[in-house]
């Protein structure tokens, strides 16, 4: 398999992808990816309240 084969297939799909559906898929994928990324990389991970953080 060559990267040209892949690029040709991707370009064909891009042209045939319903833009509204594609936009919805992108939004859903971003949300899903955020929830499934390694824990320390999530933006919306639970924060420890300041009051519970150890102090020096």
């Amino acid at each position, binding site marked *: 398999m060559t990267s040209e084969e892949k690029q040709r297939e991707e370009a064909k799909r891009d042209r*045939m992808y319903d833009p509204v559906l594609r936009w919805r898929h992108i939004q859903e*994928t971003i949300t*899903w990816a955020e*929830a499934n*990324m390694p824990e320390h990389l999530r933006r919306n991970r639970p924060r420890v309240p300041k009051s519970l953080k150890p102090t020096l």
Partner: protein
Amino acid sequence: MNMNVDTILEVFQRHKVDAILIGGMNFLLRHQPVLTFDIDFWVRDNDENLSRVTAAMRELEAQWGKSEKTWGTLSANHDWRSQNIFCVTTKYGAVDIFREVQGLEGQYEACHARSLLEQTVSGIPYRSLSDRDMLACQLALPENERRLDRVTFLKNHLEQSS
């Protein structure tokens, strides 16, 4: 309700498709965020498994065509052997099906043995291509097409864990 990627993984699982998750989504799930919107599967290339791929893809309402003129619902007797890669749309997102992966040609069995059985946050299991094999894929690409951030990350990660 499961998110789109979970649904795709779940359908593959339910149809007992023998496949390894590769590409950006695999890297993202294991390591760090990358911009990726399709799900890449490397599938075992035998008749029985390719039939399962067809069943799974049809349940996902996959669309594909050899050309734009013939683009439409994936047929029940779709010939996966006509190409090495298929970029498909489904009701739940874009899916790429690879019969062969650049840099890992003819090594499905060994890569499967090295792959990791992981699961999503919702508990959907999937096979994940190992770091070593992810790096091999990147290094097989022409230099101007490699994702340098991934190459650097994987090299460092493999060095640290060896």
